[in-house]
């Protein structure tokens, strides 16, 4: 039967080729639409993943701020967010990296410049994993040579300040020219900051019943200078979503930790009894896969800390893309639906043309099922060939659009991106869908052909 169907397809070659082409265009439209949707989803996921937002959990101490409400009498002291907490987080399965969040204010000037040429900026720390952040895509210079080195990466707009160039208010992420970057790289930056000194302060005069009378914890604040070597310039802030304010100067996280800069949490630890030790204002826990965020987040909460992630936002994004893919798929399928009418038309025409032949076949012993099967094979063959053609055509359309988009982006000084992705499941799915649609389209003609009265069919000229 397959051979007979193949022969019939070859006999009406032009018509069947055009029908197959129609299916090909339908499948191509489906593949093109869906691969665009999938490509965009992957692009956004990639970008968001690289932003560090979707695999990070922000941990803070509980009851950190109670506003103006009175403190309850039986207030249980919150668990301090200290080194032991940090170690506990590191022990949770699925955790990739744990680092304290630093944010401090410092004064900076290029070594050798006049004292009045200094600038205040927020200074933050970067973990080694930050190298994979999207901000480093157009990074100029080199990353830190280690995690505990006196090196610094600065933002381009801060570099503009250091070079006494006019600011670019319209685009804070505007690039520096290679020549301007060259003037900064390797230079020393003098960093003046407030250090939390390890020395214990002298206890304040104690009044009767004063808690301080029994709690001698405390620290001094000392002004310190530190030379930092400028290693590189980034145009946008790495892990921007994790920070408050614009952090223009970035130190290696371990080095920043060692500087003992005064943090907002230090004031709280000074006030709270029994918390005179080193306490972090917040800790960032990065997991190996964003899927593990909820699980790790739960475990951190069980340990007695506040934990926050934006995994819900990620879920909503996935949902939005699922709908987008669905709609794109429906639109793509419309062309295939139109093409399926072409199959019906072609096969109905074939019945009219081959009416006598069907009669002959039945007279020679072909059953209704045999005749039906021949038409099904013909429809299925057009589906397979059209599907294959469509997948290839869809892929090609995708490549062309991707190329065109990247040319456009390149002209606008934007980095090339892949918005197009054709996964294997889409190829196989499109082929299967094409065959299925073709079979469904072939059902009516096949059934009609099978029901032909052989006597009537043999009389047909």
């Amino acid at each position: 039967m397959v051979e007979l169907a193949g022969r019939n397809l070859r006999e009406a070659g032009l018509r069947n080729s055009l029908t197959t082409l129609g299916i090909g265009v339908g499948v191509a439209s489906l593949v093109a639409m869906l691969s665009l949707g999938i490509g965009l989803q992957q692009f956004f996921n990639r970008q968001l993943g690289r932003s560090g937002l979707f695999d990070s959990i922000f941990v803070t101490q509980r009851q950190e701020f109670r506003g103006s409400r009175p403190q309850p009498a039986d207030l249980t002291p919150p668990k301090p967010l200290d080194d032991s907490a940090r170690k506990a987080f590191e022990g949770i399965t699925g955790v990739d990296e744990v680092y304290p969040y630093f944010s401090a204010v410092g004064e900076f000037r290029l070594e050798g410049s006049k004292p009045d040429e200094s600038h205040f900026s927020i200074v933050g720390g970067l973990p080694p994993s930050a190298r994979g952040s999207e901000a480093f895509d157009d990074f100029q210079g080199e990353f830190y040579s280690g995690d505990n080195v006196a090196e610094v990466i600065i933002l381009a707009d801060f570099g503009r300040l250091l070079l006494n160039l006019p600011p670019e208010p319209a685009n804070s992420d505007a690039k520096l020219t290679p020549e301007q970057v060259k003037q900064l790289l390797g230079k020393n930056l003098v960093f003046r900051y407030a250090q939390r000194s390890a020395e214990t302060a002298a206890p304040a005069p104690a009044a009767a019943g004063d808690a301080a009378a029994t709690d001698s914890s405390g620290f001094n604040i000392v002004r310190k200078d530190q030379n930092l070597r400028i290693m590189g310039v980034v145009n946008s802030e790495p892990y921007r979503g994790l920070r408050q304010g614009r952090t223009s100067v970035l130190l290696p996280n371990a080095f920043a930790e060692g500087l003992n800069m005064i943090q907002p949490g230090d004031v709280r630890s000074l006030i709270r009894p029994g918390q005179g030790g080193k306490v972090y204002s917040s800790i960032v826990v990065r997991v190996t896969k964003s899927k593990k965020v909820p699980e790790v987040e739960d475990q951190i909460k069980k340990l007695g800390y506040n934990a926050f992630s934006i995994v819900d936002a990620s879920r909503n994004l996935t949902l939005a893309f699922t709908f987008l893919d669905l709609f794109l798929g429906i639109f793509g399928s419309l062309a295939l639906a139109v093409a399926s009418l072409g199959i019906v038309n072609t096969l109905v025409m074939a019945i009219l043309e081959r009416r006598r032949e069907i009669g002959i076949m039945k007279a020679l012993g072909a059953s209704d099922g045999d005749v039906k099967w021949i038409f099904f094979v013909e429809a299925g063959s057009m589906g397979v060939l059209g599907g294959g053609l469509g997948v290839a055509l869809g892929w090609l359309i995708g490549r062309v659009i991707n190329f065109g988009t990247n040319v456009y982006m390149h002209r606008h000084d934007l980095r090339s991106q892949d918005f197009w992705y054709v996964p294997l499941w889409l190829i196989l799915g499109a082929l299967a869908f094409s065959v299925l649609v073709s079979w469904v389209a072939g059902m009516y003609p096949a059934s009609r052909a099978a029901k032909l009265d052989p006597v009537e069919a043999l009389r047909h000229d």
Partner: protein
Amino acid sequence: MGDNGNEAIKTVSLVRHYRLGRSVIPAVDGVSLAAKRGEFIALLGASGSGKSTLLNLIAGLDRPDAGEIVVDGQDLASMDSRQLAQYRRHTVGMVFQSFNLVPNMTLYENVELPMRFAETPRRDRKSRALEALRRVGLSDRMHHRPSEMSGGEQQRAALARALVNEPKILLADEPTGNLDSKTGTEIMDLIRELNRTLQMTVVMVTHEKPLAERYAGRLIFLGDGKLLSETENNKLGAAR
């Protein structure tokens, strides 16, 4: 079913009516006949007498409205369409006035076609198709298409196709109707040879009485769907 073992075909009060608008046309109207194995029967009658309808009923291409039709011990009236297809594959072979070869197939492919439906293994198909073509003298034309052949050659190919599944009964509907007399005689000689050598039952529809008298052992006359008369062909012995 009344099959005495020597009966190839038996019809009892067979009825087949067609509707044409509001009127009902009795194409076959209560025909009862019987044919022995190896017999050569001619169905004669004017156009519209019901002879082709009767042949189609015997071929299992059509179904009776009433009556009994038993061929080779099989009750055709009680068969479903799948069983009828099976019956057409193995029990009967047909030749038609207009040959009915598939035009886009070569002679070899046309002859091979019934074996495809009979699911004959591929290796057997070739040898049997070649043997059937050799029997009708078309071995050297097997790769030609019907349009490249004369009417006589096409009818011979149709005969080869009818024989290839080794049926017990050959049904011929005006087999010489589209042929000149010389070619018609060649075809009829071939059919008679098959009838004699293979002991194949032959039922031939024709409106040419002389042709029937020359080849058939029994002549059955139909008119308005009824069996008018049947006669043993005494002239046949003389012709032989």
